[in-house]
């Protein structure tokens, strides 16, 4: 079965959506991601959707939900690389994704996460690193 890979980079999780999303894939991603956040204690999640050209209300809701779930698990979410057509569609659908941070590309998204979590990471870096290894 097709799955979207979730990569771990230090205290962050990196999700790159390279295929068109369908509802089933979205649900699987939601399960996997929450599972991984809980397991690794990640403090930030970066979702790259630059290859995503089609969204519907379900995928939009899924993105909002993933961010909300991550927040409950104490991880910040950044969505990066949204295409203009996708942004317009989401706005027209009334989904402004209020709780989600956004950035133009992965690099800036990473910087945003680092800046946002800088104080928390400084204190926690030692035990987080020890737990992962």
């Amino acid at each position: 079965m097709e799955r979207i890979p979730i990569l771990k980079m230090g205290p962050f999780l990196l999700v790159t959506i390279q295929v068109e999303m369908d509802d089933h894939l979205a649900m699987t991603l939601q399960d996997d991601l929450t599972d991984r956040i809980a397991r690794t204690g990640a403090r930030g999640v970066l979702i790259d959707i630059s290859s995503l050209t089609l969204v519907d209300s379900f995928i939009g809701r899924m993105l909002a939900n993933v961010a909300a779930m991550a927040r409950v698990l104490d991880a910040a979410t950044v969505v990066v690389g949204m295409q203009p057509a996708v942004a317009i569609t989401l706005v027209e659908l009334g989904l402004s994704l209020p709780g989600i941070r956004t950035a133009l590309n992965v690099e800036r998204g990473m910087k945003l996460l680092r800046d946002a979590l800088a104080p928390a990471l400084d204190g926690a870096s030692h035990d987080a690193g020890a737990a992962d290894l």
Partner: protein
Amino acid sequence: MPENIRLAAVLARNEQELLNDWLREQAASGTRTVRVLGETIVRDQSRRLLVAMREAFASGHTSIDDAAWREVREVLSEVSREGAASGLTPSETATFVFSLKRPLFAALRKATGNDANALADETWAATTLVDQLGLYTTEVFQKAREEIIQRQQSEMLELSTPVVKLWQGVLALPLIGTLDSRRTQIVMESLLERIVETGAEVAIIDITGVPTVDTLVAQHLIKAVTAARLMGTECIISGIRPQIAQTIVHLGVDLQGVTTKATLADAFQLALTRGGRSLPAATPSHG
């Protein structure tokens, strides 16, 4: 149809005379057609129309929608389009055709002699035909005007939505004129495309040129700002005049945490500081 055979014969026999009478009639009608389009052009078009009508009659069809009347329709379209483009009124364009009635009726009277019944039939056939032609010119005229308006509208839409790069990572979108949903769509698309191209972190939407901001316009602005934010670019709305600030508050419009500034200069300064850059002499130092 015997009437049409005679009408056709009259057209064929008296072509030169009809043309001269018709042109005289057009000049006497008091419309600006001849003056605006030019005498040689009107003469040429009138002549071509008569020739085309004669040929169409020769085919035996009487409805101007028929393929045999294509040439007639083309000449009429030409007259109407030129008239529409050079600012003639619809009635002036239609008079071009209707002024053919009198010369045509006179020629018919001559051809029928003392036969009153035949004259009445012929006149009826002729008047029906000329009316059809007149209606056709009006229709084409209307269509031509609509095309002109549509073209101008699309030109205006393209002209009025430039997205300018103010600085590395700072875009500005000076909006001029009323925002409706169609324009918002185009503005939004060009803004988002430029964001992708330039990788801008901040976009300034300047509404100095927007005459009024009501709830709908505000909603459209918020949409554009939200879409830009989804892509990772922050928007600042600038150029809010005191009057508009009052209107926004009185209408109870919630700008949903969008940063607003009174002038483009203020917004630009904010954009630069947000991006971690500093402007050498941002504050007026002279004086």
